[in-house]
Protein backbone atom coordinates (compact mmCIF):
# COMPACT_ATOMS: atom_id res chain seq x y z
CA UNK A 1 0.00 0.00 0.00
CA UNK A 2 1.40 3.36 -1.05
CA UNK A 3 -0.10 6.78 -0.24
CA UNK A 4 -0.06 9.57 -2.82
CA UNK A 5 -0.90 13.24 -2.43
CA UNK A 6 -1.40 16.06 -4.93
CA UNK A 7 0.12 19.08 -3.23
CA UNK A 8 -0.82 21.46 -6.06
CA UNK A 9 -4.54 20.89 -5.50
CA UNK A 10 -4.42 20.78 -1.68
CA UNK A 11 -6.47 23.53 0.02
CA UNK A 12 -4.82 23.14 3.41
CA UNK A 13 -7.86 22.19 5.47
CA UNK A 14 -5.68 20.04 7.71
CA UNK A 15 -8.25 17.31 8.21
CA UNK A 16 -5.71 14.57 7.36
CA UNK A 17 -3.32 15.88 10.02
CA UNK A 18 -6.06 15.80 12.66
CA UNK A 19 -6.98 12.22 11.66
CA UNK A 20 -3.56 10.66 11.02
CA UNK A 21 -0.81 12.90 12.46
CA UNK A 22 1.85 10.18 12.07
CA UNK A 23 1.24 10.01 8.32
CA UNK A 24 0.40 13.60 7.28
CA UNK A 25 1.65 17.07 8.17
CA UNK A 26 1.24 20.58 6.73
CA UNK A 27 3.94 22.99 5.58
CA UNK A 28 3.93 26.69 6.53
CA UNK A 29 1.32 27.40 3.84
CA UNK A 30 -0.92 24.64 5.14
CA UNK A 31 -0.18 22.34 2.21
CA UNK A 32 -0.10 18.60 2.89
CA UNK A 33 3.26 16.95 3.56
CA UNK A 34 3.44 13.17 3.42
CA UNK A 35 5.48 11.93 6.39
CA UNK A 36 5.15 8.23 5.69
CA UNK A 37 4.08 6.94 2.27
CA UNK A 38 3.99 3.32 3.47
CA UNK A 39 2.63 3.44 7.04
CA UNK A 40 2.17 0.37 9.26
CA UNK A 41 -1.12 -1.54 9.04
CA UNK A 42 -2.42 0.02 12.28
CA UNK A 43 -2.76 3.31 10.35
CA UNK A 44 -5.02 1.82 7.64
CA UNK A 45 -8.31 2.99 9.13
CA UNK A 46 -7.10 6.52 9.87
CA UNK A 47 -5.62 6.80 6.37
CA UNK A 48 -8.87 5.62 4.75
CA UNK A 49 -10.75 8.16 6.86
CA UNK A 50 -8.37 10.92 5.74
CA UNK A 51 -8.84 9.87 2.10
CA UNK A 52 -12.64 10.00 2.30
CA UNK A 53 -12.79 13.25 4.31
CA UNK A 54 -10.22 15.28 2.35
CA UNK A 55 -12.23 18.26 1.01
CA UNK A 56 -10.26 18.41 -2.24
CA UNK A 57 -9.82 14.65 -2.71
CA UNK A 58 -6.04 14.98 -3.12
CA UNK A 59 -5.06 11.87 -1.12
CA UNK A 60 -5.31 8.43 -2.67
CA UNK A 61 -4.00 4.98 -1.84
CA UNK A 62 -2.46 2.61 -4.37
CA UNK A 63 -3.15 -0.84 -2.94
CA UNK A 64 -0.90 -2.66 -5.40
CA UNK A 65 2.13 -0.42 -5.29
Amino acid sequence: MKINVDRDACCGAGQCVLLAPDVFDQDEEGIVVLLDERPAADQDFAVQEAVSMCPTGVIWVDQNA
Partner: protein
Amino acid sequence: MSDLLDYPIPSDRAIEPPPEWEELRQQCPVAKVRLASGGEATLLTRYDDVRAMLTDGRFGRVIPAGGTGVGSQDDGGTFSNDPTGVMADEEQHQAWRRLVNATFTAKRVQALAPGITARAEQLIDDMLAAGGPADLVPALAFPLPVWVICELLGVPEDQRERFPYWSDTALSTTRYTQEEISAARQEFGAYMAALVEAKRAQPGDDLISELIALVDRNDPRLTAQTVIGTSMALLVAGHETTASHIAKMMALFLGDRSRWERLVADPSLVRSAVEESLRFDPNAGFGMVRWVDEDVEIAGETVPAGTTVVCSLAAANRDEGTFEGAAEMDLGRRPNPHLSFGAGAYSCLGQSLARTELQIVLAALVRKVPSLELAVDVESVPRKEGLLVAGFDELPVKWGE
Protein backbone atom coordinates in the same frame (compact mmCIF):
# COMPACT_ATOMS: atom_id res chain seq x y z
CA MET B 1 -42.81 19.70 -10.03
CA SER B 2 -44.10 21.99 -12.71
CA ASP B 3 -44.09 25.17 -10.63
CA LEU B 4 -40.73 26.59 -9.71
CA LEU B 5 -39.70 25.63 -6.21
CA ASP B 6 -38.84 28.51 -3.89
CA TYR B 7 -35.35 28.29 -2.46
CA PRO B 8 -34.48 28.17 0.41
CA ILE B 9 -37.30 25.68 0.98
CA PRO B 10 -39.47 26.99 3.83
CA SER B 11 -39.46 24.69 6.86
CA ASP B 12 -41.15 25.12 10.22
CA ARG B 13 -39.30 22.31 12.00
CA ALA B 14 -36.35 23.23 14.20
CA ILE B 15 -34.30 20.07 13.79
CA GLU B 16 -35.94 18.09 10.96
CA PRO B 17 -35.13 18.55 7.27
CA PRO B 18 -37.90 19.55 4.84
CA PRO B 19 -39.41 16.46 3.11
CA GLU B 20 -38.70 18.04 -0.30
CA TRP B 21 -35.02 17.10 0.01
CA GLU B 22 -35.70 13.40 -0.39
CA GLU B 23 -38.11 14.01 -3.30
CA LEU B 24 -35.54 16.16 -5.06
CA ARG B 25 -32.69 13.67 -4.58
CA GLN B 26 -34.88 10.85 -5.86
CA GLN B 27 -36.83 12.51 -8.65
CA CYS B 28 -35.27 15.83 -9.53
CA PRO B 29 -31.56 15.99 -8.63
CA VAL B 30 -31.07 18.93 -11.01
CA ALA B 31 -33.94 21.24 -10.04
CA LYS B 32 -34.90 24.70 -11.26
CA VAL B 33 -35.59 26.97 -8.30
CA ARG B 34 -36.54 30.59 -7.69
CA LEU B 35 -34.41 32.56 -5.22
CA ALA B 36 -35.69 35.26 -2.86
CA SER B 37 -34.06 37.80 -5.17
CA GLY B 38 -36.41 36.62 -7.94
CA GLY B 39 -33.75 35.02 -10.14
CA GLU B 40 -33.75 31.43 -11.33
CA ALA B 41 -31.03 28.99 -10.34
CA THR B 42 -30.36 25.26 -10.52
CA LEU B 43 -30.36 23.35 -7.23
CA LEU B 44 -28.26 20.20 -6.61
CA THR B 45 -29.18 17.92 -3.70
CA ARG B 46 -27.35 14.61 -4.31
CA TYR B 47 -24.04 14.03 -2.56
CA ASP B 48 -22.07 12.97 -5.63
CA ASP B 49 -23.37 15.86 -7.75
CA VAL B 50 -22.72 18.47 -5.05
CA ARG B 51 -19.22 17.17 -4.39
CA ALA B 52 -18.38 16.98 -8.10
CA MET B 53 -19.56 20.56 -8.66
CA LEU B 54 -17.67 21.99 -5.66
CA THR B 55 -14.42 20.24 -6.58
CA ASP B 56 -14.64 21.15 -10.29
CA GLY B 57 -11.87 23.69 -10.77
CA ARG B 58 -13.59 25.12 -13.88
CA PHE B 59 -16.38 26.77 -11.93
CA GLY B 60 -15.85 29.72 -9.60
CA ARG B 61 -18.05 31.33 -6.98
CA VAL B 62 -18.34 34.81 -8.44
CA ILE B 63 -21.46 35.45 -10.53
CA PRO B 64 -20.79 37.89 -13.39
CA ALA B 65 -23.15 40.74 -14.29
CA GLY B 66 -26.12 39.35 -16.20
CA GLY B 67 -26.18 36.02 -14.37
CA THR B 68 -28.68 35.20 -11.64
CA GLY B 69 -27.07 36.98 -8.75
CA VAL B 70 -27.36 35.75 -5.22
CA GLY B 71 -28.31 38.81 -3.22
CA SER B 72 -28.12 39.57 0.48
CA GLN B 73 -31.80 38.66 0.85
CA ASP B 74 -30.79 35.13 -0.23
CA ASP B 75 -27.62 34.45 1.65
CA GLY B 76 -26.84 37.45 3.82
CA GLY B 77 -24.18 38.68 1.44
CA THR B 78 -21.85 35.71 1.86
CA PHE B 79 -21.46 35.49 -1.89
CA SER B 80 -22.56 38.89 -3.10
CA ASN B 81 -19.93 40.54 -0.90
CA ASP B 82 -16.31 39.67 -1.04
CA PRO B 83 -14.53 41.84 1.52
CA THR B 84 -11.24 40.07 0.79
CA GLY B 85 -11.39 41.04 -2.90
CA VAL B 86 -9.59 37.84 -3.92
CA MET B 87 -12.44 35.46 -4.75
CA ALA B 88 -12.89 36.40 -8.41
CA ASP B 89 -9.45 35.27 -9.50
CA GLU B 90 -8.50 31.64 -8.97
CA GLU B 91 -4.75 32.20 -8.76
CA GLN B 92 -5.10 35.24 -6.53
CA HIS B 93 -7.43 33.30 -4.27
CA GLN B 94 -5.02 30.39 -3.98
CA ALA B 95 -2.10 32.67 -3.14
CA TRP B 96 -4.20 34.50 -0.52
CA ARG B 97 -5.44 31.24 0.92
CA ARG B 98 -1.95 29.78 1.31
CA LEU B 99 -0.94 32.91 3.18
CA VAL B 100 -3.86 32.86 5.61
CA ASN B 101 -3.74 29.04 5.92
CA ALA B 102 -0.58 29.38 8.00
CA THR B 103 -2.65 30.57 10.96
CA PHE B 104 -5.15 27.74 10.65
CA THR B 105 -2.97 24.66 10.19
CA ALA B 106 -4.01 21.67 12.29
CA LYS B 107 -0.90 21.94 14.47
CA ARG B 108 -1.25 25.67 15.14
CA VAL B 109 -4.88 25.12 16.02
CA GLN B 110 -4.04 22.20 18.29
CA ALA B 111 -1.52 24.42 20.08
CA LEU B 112 -4.45 26.70 20.97
CA ALA B 113 -6.46 23.81 22.45
CA PRO B 114 -5.28 24.14 26.08
CA GLY B 115 -6.20 27.83 26.14
CA ILE B 116 -9.59 27.20 24.53
CA THR B 117 -10.27 24.38 27.02
CA ALA B 118 -9.44 26.61 29.99
CA ARG B 119 -11.73 29.33 28.65
CA ALA B 120 -14.57 26.85 28.04
CA GLU B 121 -14.22 25.43 31.56
CA GLN B 122 -14.24 28.92 33.05
CA LEU B 123 -17.44 29.82 31.18
CA ILE B 124 -19.09 26.57 32.31
CA ASP B 125 -18.00 27.15 35.93
CA ASP B 126 -19.48 30.66 35.80
CA MET B 127 -22.75 29.27 34.41
CA LEU B 128 -22.93 26.60 37.14
CA ALA B 129 -22.10 29.11 39.86
CA ALA B 130 -24.92 31.41 38.74
CA GLY B 131 -27.38 28.51 39.10
CA GLY B 132 -29.84 26.94 36.70
CA PRO B 133 -31.78 27.08 34.54
CA ALA B 134 -29.40 28.98 32.27
CA ASP B 135 -29.29 30.07 28.66
CA LEU B 136 -26.43 28.21 26.97
CA VAL B 137 -26.13 30.76 24.12
CA PRO B 138 -24.86 33.81 26.09
CA ALA B 139 -23.25 31.60 28.74
CA LEU B 140 -21.04 29.53 26.42
CA ALA B 141 -22.01 29.08 22.77
CA PHE B 142 -21.46 32.72 21.82
CA PRO B 143 -18.63 34.01 24.04
CA LEU B 144 -16.21 31.13 23.45
CA PRO B 145 -15.84 31.43 19.65
CA VAL B 146 -15.76 35.24 19.88
CA TRP B 147 -12.92 35.00 22.38
CA VAL B 148 -11.01 32.52 20.18
CA ILE B 149 -11.19 34.53 16.96
CA CYS B 150 -10.46 37.82 18.72
CA GLU B 151 -7.39 36.27 20.37
CA LEU B 152 -6.20 34.98 16.97
CA LEU B 153 -6.76 38.30 15.21
CA GLY B 154 -5.55 40.38 18.13
CA VAL B 155 -8.73 42.34 18.88
CA PRO B 156 -8.50 43.99 22.33
CA GLU B 157 -10.98 42.62 24.86
CA ASP B 158 -12.69 45.95 25.55
CA GLN B 159 -13.49 46.52 21.85
CA ARG B 160 -15.66 43.49 21.21
CA GLU B 161 -19.15 44.56 22.23
CA ARG B 162 -20.26 45.73 18.75
CA PHE B 163 -19.29 42.46 17.07
CA PRO B 164 -22.52 40.56 17.64
CA TYR B 165 -24.47 43.35 15.92
CA TRP B 166 -22.03 43.73 13.01
CA SER B 167 -21.94 40.01 12.55
CA ASP B 168 -25.73 39.59 12.64
CA THR B 169 -26.17 42.38 10.11
CA ALA B 170 -23.45 40.90 7.89
CA LEU B 171 -25.37 37.62 7.79
CA SER B 172 -28.86 39.13 7.71
CA THR B 173 -31.30 37.93 5.07
CA THR B 174 -34.50 39.64 6.21
CA ARG B 175 -33.92 40.63 9.83
CA TYR B 176 -32.44 44.07 9.10
CA THR B 177 -33.18 46.72 6.50
CA GLN B 178 -30.71 47.42 3.69
CA GLU B 179 -29.94 50.81 5.34
CA GLU B 180 -29.13 49.13 8.65
CA ILE B 181 -26.96 46.55 6.90
CA SER B 182 -25.04 49.18 4.92
CA ALA B 183 -24.54 51.41 7.97
CA ALA B 184 -23.29 48.48 10.04
CA ARG B 185 -20.92 47.36 7.28
CA GLN B 186 -19.47 50.86 7.05
CA GLU B 187 -19.04 51.10 10.82
CA PHE B 188 -17.44 47.65 10.93
CA GLY B 189 -15.11 48.52 8.03
CA ALA B 190 -14.07 51.79 9.67
CA TYR B 191 -13.39 49.99 12.95
CA MET B 192 -11.25 47.37 11.23
CA ALA B 193 -9.31 49.97 9.23
CA ALA B 194 -8.50 51.79 12.48
CA LEU B 195 -7.48 48.53 14.17
CA VAL B 196 -5.18 47.62 11.25
CA GLU B 197 -3.54 51.06 11.49
CA ALA B 198 -3.11 50.62 15.25
CA LYS B 199 -1.46 47.22 14.67
CA ARG B 200 0.84 48.76 12.08
CA ALA B 201 1.99 51.33 14.64
CA GLN B 202 2.24 48.80 17.44
CA PRO B 203 2.39 45.18 16.21
CA GLY B 204 1.37 42.30 18.45
CA ASP B 205 1.65 38.53 18.29
CA ASP B 206 -1.46 38.06 16.16
CA LEU B 207 -2.73 37.46 12.62
CA ILE B 208 -3.48 41.09 11.73
CA SER B 209 0.05 42.12 12.72
CA GLU B 210 1.51 39.25 10.67
CA LEU B 211 -0.50 40.21 7.59
CA ILE B 212 0.26 43.92 7.85
CA ALA B 213 3.98 43.13 8.16
CA LEU B 214 3.74 41.30 4.82
CA VAL B 215 2.05 44.32 3.21
CA ASP B 216 4.80 46.57 4.49
CA ARG B 217 7.38 44.25 2.96
CA ASN B 218 5.58 44.72 -0.38
CA ASP B 219 4.37 41.14 -0.60
CA PRO B 220 2.48 41.10 -3.93
CA ARG B 221 -0.20 38.81 -2.51
CA LEU B 222 -1.64 41.43 -0.19
CA THR B 223 -2.75 45.04 0.03
CA ALA B 224 -3.79 46.99 3.12
CA GLN B 225 -7.40 46.80 1.87
CA THR B 226 -7.14 43.00 1.61
CA VAL B 227 -5.93 42.84 5.21
CA ILE B 228 -8.93 44.86 6.39
CA GLY B 229 -11.32 42.69 4.33
CA THR B 230 -9.69 39.45 5.43
CA SER B 231 -9.92 40.49 9.08
CA MET B 232 -13.63 41.35 8.68
CA ALA B 233 -14.35 38.08 6.90
CA LEU B 234 -12.49 35.99 9.47
CA LEU B 235 -14.14 37.76 12.37
CA VAL B 236 -17.64 37.07 11.06
CA ALA B 237 -16.92 33.60 9.67
CA GLY B 238 -14.87 32.69 12.70
CA HIS B 239 -17.51 33.02 15.34
CA GLU B 240 -21.09 33.20 14.03
CA THR B 241 -21.06 29.75 12.43
CA THR B 242 -19.30 28.11 15.36
CA ALA B 243 -21.46 29.84 17.98
CA SER B 244 -24.58 28.88 16.11
CA HIS B 245 -23.44 25.30 15.69
CA ILE B 246 -22.61 24.86 19.38
CA ALA B 247 -26.26 25.64 20.19
CA LYS B 248 -27.62 23.46 17.36
CA MET B 249 -25.31 20.58 18.29
CA MET B 250 -26.39 20.72 21.94
CA ALA B 251 -30.06 20.88 20.91
CA LEU B 252 -29.54 17.72 18.83
CA PHE B 253 -27.74 15.86 21.61
CA LEU B 254 -30.00 16.98 24.46
CA GLY B 255 -33.19 16.87 22.40
CA ASP B 256 -32.89 13.08 22.35
CA ARG B 257 -31.70 12.09 25.81
CA SER B 258 -30.32 8.74 24.64
CA ARG B 259 -27.72 10.58 22.52
CA TRP B 260 -26.48 12.59 25.47
CA GLU B 261 -26.38 9.52 27.73
CA ARG B 262 -24.32 7.66 25.14
CA LEU B 263 -21.78 10.52 25.09
CA VAL B 264 -21.61 10.64 28.89
CA ALA B 265 -21.07 6.87 28.99
CA ASP B 266 -18.39 6.99 26.28
CA PRO B 267 -16.65 10.38 25.88
CA SER B 268 -14.34 8.88 23.24
CA LEU B 269 -17.28 9.42 20.87
CA VAL B 270 -16.93 13.22 21.10
CA ARG B 271 -14.96 13.60 17.85
CA SER B 272 -17.25 11.47 15.69
CA ALA B 273 -20.33 12.92 17.42
CA VAL B 274 -19.27 16.45 16.45
CA GLU B 275 -18.86 15.36 12.81
CA GLU B 276 -22.27 13.67 12.89
CA SER B 277 -23.89 16.83 14.30
CA LEU B 278 -22.37 18.76 11.39
CA ARG B 279 -23.69 16.22 8.89
CA PHE B 280 -27.12 16.16 10.53
CA ASP B 281 -27.66 19.93 10.78
CA PRO B 282 -30.74 20.70 8.66
CA ASN B 283 -30.18 24.49 8.97
CA ALA B 284 -26.70 24.57 7.53
CA GLY B 285 -27.37 27.75 5.60
CA PHE B 286 -28.09 28.67 2.01
CA GLY B 287 -25.60 26.31 0.38
CA MET B 288 -22.67 26.99 -1.92
CA VAL B 289 -23.01 28.83 -5.21
CA ARG B 290 -21.12 28.16 -8.44
CA TRP B 291 -21.22 29.96 -11.78
CA VAL B 292 -21.32 27.45 -14.64
CA ASP B 293 -19.77 29.13 -17.68
CA GLU B 294 -19.62 26.11 -19.98
CA ASP B 295 -22.13 23.31 -20.55
CA VAL B 296 -21.74 20.56 -17.97
CA GLU B 297 -23.48 17.21 -17.55
CA ILE B 298 -24.92 16.54 -14.10
CA ALA B 299 -26.93 13.41 -13.28
CA GLY B 300 -27.53 12.79 -17.00
CA GLU B 301 -28.78 16.30 -17.68
CA THR B 302 -26.98 19.10 -19.45
CA VAL B 303 -26.75 22.24 -17.37
CA PRO B 304 -26.14 25.02 -19.89
CA ALA B 305 -23.44 27.65 -19.73
CA GLY B 306 -24.74 30.74 -17.94
CA THR B 307 -26.39 28.94 -15.04
CA THR B 308 -26.13 29.82 -11.36
CA VAL B 309 -25.90 26.52 -9.48
CA VAL B 310 -26.77 26.27 -5.79
CA CYS B 311 -25.35 23.22 -3.99
CA SER B 312 -27.37 22.23 -0.92
CA LEU B 313 -24.74 20.87 1.46
CA ALA B 314 -27.35 19.89 4.02
CA ALA B 315 -29.46 17.92 1.53
CA ALA B 316 -26.33 16.17 0.22
CA ASN B 317 -25.44 15.25 3.80
CA ARG B 318 -28.69 13.26 4.04
CA ASP B 319 -28.09 11.27 0.83
CA GLU B 320 -28.73 7.58 1.55
CA GLY B 321 -26.44 6.67 -1.36
CA THR B 322 -23.44 7.94 0.62
CA PHE B 323 -24.54 7.69 4.24
CA GLU B 324 -26.08 4.41 5.36
CA GLY B 325 -29.05 5.17 7.59
CA ALA B 326 -28.72 8.84 6.58
CA ALA B 327 -31.91 9.87 8.41
CA GLU B 328 -30.57 8.47 11.69
CA MET B 329 -28.00 10.18 13.85
CA ASP B 330 -25.14 7.77 14.53
CA LEU B 331 -22.69 9.28 17.03
CA GLY B 332 -20.03 6.72 16.09
CA ARG B 333 -20.29 7.18 12.30
CA ARG B 334 -16.84 6.82 10.69
CA PRO B 335 -15.78 7.82 8.20
CA ASN B 336 -18.12 10.77 7.85
CA PRO B 337 -17.34 12.64 4.63
CA HIS B 338 -20.09 15.27 5.14
CA LEU B 339 -19.96 18.49 3.16
CA SER B 340 -20.81 20.98 5.90
CA PHE B 341 -17.47 22.78 5.39
CA GLY B 342 -17.90 22.62 1.62
CA ALA B 343 -15.38 20.88 -0.64
CA GLY B 344 -12.77 21.88 -3.15
CA ALA B 345 -10.57 24.94 -3.33
CA TYR B 346 -13.06 27.17 -1.46
CA SER B 347 -13.87 24.80 1.38
CA CYS B 348 -13.87 26.31 4.86
CA LEU B 349 -10.52 27.84 5.75
CA GLY B 350 -11.18 27.57 9.48
CA GLN B 351 -12.47 24.01 9.63
CA SER B 352 -9.66 22.69 11.87
CA LEU B 353 -10.35 25.54 14.29
CA ALA B 354 -14.12 25.00 14.18
CA ARG B 355 -13.73 21.25 14.74
CA THR B 356 -11.34 21.83 17.65
CA GLU B 357 -13.66 24.35 19.32
CA LEU B 358 -16.71 22.10 18.92
CA GLN B 359 -14.86 19.07 20.30
CA ILE B 360 -13.57 21.07 23.27
CA VAL B 361 -17.01 22.47 24.15
CA LEU B 362 -18.73 19.11 23.89
CA ALA B 363 -16.04 17.26 25.85
CA ALA B 364 -16.08 19.92 28.59
CA LEU B 365 -19.87 19.76 28.98
CA VAL B 366 -19.88 15.95 29.03
CA ARG B 367 -17.11 15.95 31.66
CA LYS B 368 -18.36 18.75 33.89
CA VAL B 369 -22.16 18.63 33.55
CA PRO B 370 -23.26 15.05 32.78
CA SER B 371 -26.72 15.81 34.18
CA LEU B 372 -27.28 18.60 31.63
CA GLU B 373 -30.72 18.66 30.00
CA LEU B 374 -32.93 21.02 28.02
CA ALA B 375 -35.18 23.14 30.23
CA VAL B 376 -37.88 23.29 27.51
CA ASP B 377 -39.11 21.06 24.69
CA VAL B 378 -36.68 21.22 21.76
CA GLU B 379 -39.36 22.21 19.23
CA SER B 380 -40.39 25.18 21.39
CA VAL B 381 -36.94 26.76 21.54
CA PRO B 382 -37.15 30.15 19.79
CA ARG B 383 -35.22 30.11 16.52
CA LYS B 384 -33.29 32.90 14.90
CA GLU B 385 -35.33 34.27 12.05
CA GLY B 386 -34.04 36.12 9.02
CA LEU B 387 -30.41 35.23 9.47
CA LEU B 388 -28.35 33.06 7.16
CA VAL B 389 -27.02 30.84 9.92
CA ALA B 390 -30.40 29.75 11.21
CA GLY B 391 -29.84 28.78 14.77
CA PHE B 392 -31.25 29.40 18.19
CA ASP B 393 -31.55 32.78 19.85
CA GLU B 394 -31.51 30.96 23.15
CA LEU B 395 -31.11 27.43 24.47
CA PRO B 396 -32.48 27.06 28.02
CA VAL B 397 -30.76 24.26 29.95
CA LYS B 398 -30.78 22.91 33.50
CA TRP B 399 -28.79 20.36 35.47
CA GLY B 400 -28.90 18.35 38.68
CA GLU B 401 -27.36 20.01 41.75
